[in-house]
């Protein structure tokens, strides 16, 4: 009974569907009602240029990765210092060169102990934070040992081998070893006992600031200079471009050194050097774009309308060159950052105790063999920043190129 009913139901359903499909197919070939109004209507959603670019930009995973990376860097550099208990210039000579991953020793019931590069023993709490420093009692030169006092028991520091060991001065039994993460100084400390993490934040801040200055200078001077040169053409163009040629032939390092003789070393001279020379690339790019754009019909139209040169340059030429401008900017940022780090590494950038990624690398080279993390961490940061900006630049270039429109 129920089977039959189900079957009937099924057949009914199929018949209904067939009917529907038939009518749908018939309707499909009918003309839709059409009016003049409907023909003029634009059915697509209105998308501004910026919206269009963002739409294509966000579909590229590497570009989004770069953007997130840079945003994270900005937060790290500018909000980070509020969350660390240290200052970038705060020295603690008792705790120098402590790595992020510490070798600790323990003799069963005694607390964890770690040895610093300056031959001291520091207790390490169970959660990985550093405790107090042990007091040295005496030195046994024959045994190559320094004896420390740990709540009445004696602990020996054997400095006869590298890395140093903790041992019982009586029995010469080496304590059990293991490694724990440093919770007091997440990235360790440098050769003056300063927190590497805090210095890294300030160093990143300097790098981003340099990037910001480079962008501003590029956008303002580079665009206007290149735009005027390209738009004016002729003699004006020739003279302006020769000036650019001259500026770009002076090596930046030489230039910075000369400026530092005048202004003293520091961020100000680096910014001055970047500010006065770093727009030449942009000026060249903008000039090229303007040269090719200014013979296009819409610019001729603006001229026949009677628009002024200023209007044509600012509202027609430069907005249309914006694609290459943005790409050039994002590609120039990493090179500006790298230049600052390079100058810092050479020792002609920021001076201690100020931190920049370059000076941190420079400081780290002194004890590269014992504490490679001091070089590795700021170098990794430079790499990440440059990666981030390059990814963004790559994504922007694809997003801004209408020929790649999908």
């Amino acid at each position: 009974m129920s089977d039959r009913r189900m079957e009937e139901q099924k057949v009914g359903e199929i018949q209904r569907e067939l009917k529907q499909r038939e009518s749908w197919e018939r309707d499909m070939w009918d003309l839709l009602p059409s009016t003049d109004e409907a023909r003029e209507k634009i059915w697509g959603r209105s998308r501004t240029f910026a919206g269009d670019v963002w739409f294509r930009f966000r579909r590229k995973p590497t570009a989004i990765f770069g953007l997130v990376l840079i945003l994270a860097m900005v937060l790290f550099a500018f909000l980070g210092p509020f969350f660390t208990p240290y200052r970038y210039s705060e020295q603690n000579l008792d705790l120098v060169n402590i790595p992020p991953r510490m070798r600790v020793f323990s003799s069963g019931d005694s607390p964890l102990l770690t040895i610093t590069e300056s031959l001291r023993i520091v207790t390490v709490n169970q959660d990985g934070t550093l405790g107090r420093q042990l007091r040295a009692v005496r030195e046994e030169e024959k045994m190559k040992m320094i004896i420390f006092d740990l709540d009445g028991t004696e602990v020996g520091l054997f400095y006869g081998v590298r890395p140093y060991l903790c041992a019982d001065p009586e029995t010469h039994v080496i304590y059990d070893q293991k490694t724990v993460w440093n919770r007091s100084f997440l990235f360790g400390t440098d050769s003056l006992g300063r927190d590497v993490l805090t210095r890294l934040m300030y160093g990143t801040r300097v790098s981003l600031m340099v990037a910001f200055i480079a962008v501003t200078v590029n956008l303002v001077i580079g665009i206007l200079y290149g735009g005027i040169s390209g738009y004016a053409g002729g003699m004006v163009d020739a003279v302006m471009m020769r000036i650019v040629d001259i500026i770009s032939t002076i090596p930046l390092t030489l230039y910075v050194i000369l400026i530092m003789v005048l202004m003293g070393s520091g961020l100000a001279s680096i910014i001055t050097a970047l500010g006065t020379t770093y727009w030449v690339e942009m000026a060249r790019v903008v000039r090229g774009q303007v040269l090719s754009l200014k013979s296009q019909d819409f610019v001729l139209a603006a001229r026949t309308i009677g628009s002024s040169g200023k209007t044509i340059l600012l509202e027609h030429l430069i907005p249309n060159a914006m694609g290459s401008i943005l790409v050039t900017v994002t590609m120039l940022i990493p090179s500006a950052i790298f230049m600052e780090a390079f100058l810092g590494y050479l020792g002609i950038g920021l001076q201690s105790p100020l931190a920049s990624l370059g000076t941190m690398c420079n400081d780290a080279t002194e004890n590269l063999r014992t504490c490679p993390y001091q070089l590795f961490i700021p170098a990794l940061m430079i790499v990440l920043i440059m990666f981030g900006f390059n990814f963004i630049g790559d994504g922007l270039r694809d997003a801004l190129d209408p020929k790649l429109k999908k």
Partner: protein
Amino acid sequence: MAEKSKQAILEVENLTKHFNAGRRSVVHAVDGVSFQIRRGKTFGLVGESGCGKSTCARTIIRIYDLTDGSVILDGTDITRMSQKELKPLRRKMQMIFQDPYASLNARMTVRDIIAEPLIAHGIVRRKQDADEIVADMLGQVGLTREHMGRYAHEFSGGQRQRIGIARALVLQPDLLICDEPISALDVSIQAQVINLLRDFQERKNLSYLFIAHDLSMVRYVSDEVGVMYLGQLVERSDSDELYAHPLHPYTRGLLGSIPIANPKEARLREKSGIEGDLPSPINPPAGCRFHTRCPFAKAECSEELPLLRDLGGGHYAACHLAL
């Protein structure tokens, strides 16, 4: 002559434009072209690609500076005016361009595009004040207020060309230079744009300089037609007269190249006698510039340059053989 001035909105006399092309070579783009456009009438300029039609238009509207000759707009000689002096006169003379894709700035909304001339001439101070005028102008070209916030790339070719027309007409000019306004459009859209232009001509007594290479369309829109060949005007006449009795062999050849829909009629027609390519304008042929391709060329054609002469009833032709 004074009466003629009153009548003509544009007088072009011996218009010449040469471009320097490298060392000691000169492109003779336009060489001694003269014509008048009467108020409210259309002057059609035809010729094959590269004959100097567009250069002619751009020189008249002073995108290029003249090499020689004079341009008199509504009784004012604008030949030697600086761009600054010219600016108020630009309201009288506007231009629409061939390529509706390239002639609109892709970074501007329709509102900004149409408001630009208003701001340039101080008719409105800010873009926001122009909204009413822009909306009205859009209505006149068959678009609506809703289109104002859109960007040019969102429109079809025909719609873009109408935006270009709106931009040119928002200043209420007396003369509109149309540089092949329809050749980049679909055939179905061409008629739409042409009818729009004719409609404006009737309503506002506009004059047109209409440039095209499509002879059938020029016949439809023009009162007078000039035929250009290699930078020179070779024939000039009333539109109907020119199509009925072409005098210059080049004009005949051009007319012979208009496609005819009916194959029976097409078979009866004499074949177009023009073969080969346009000679280089850097070294134009001596004598009659057309003699290298002319099927009737004689010895004198390659020696002496024929001048444009009246062959009766305002029909001018530059040919030794035309009677």
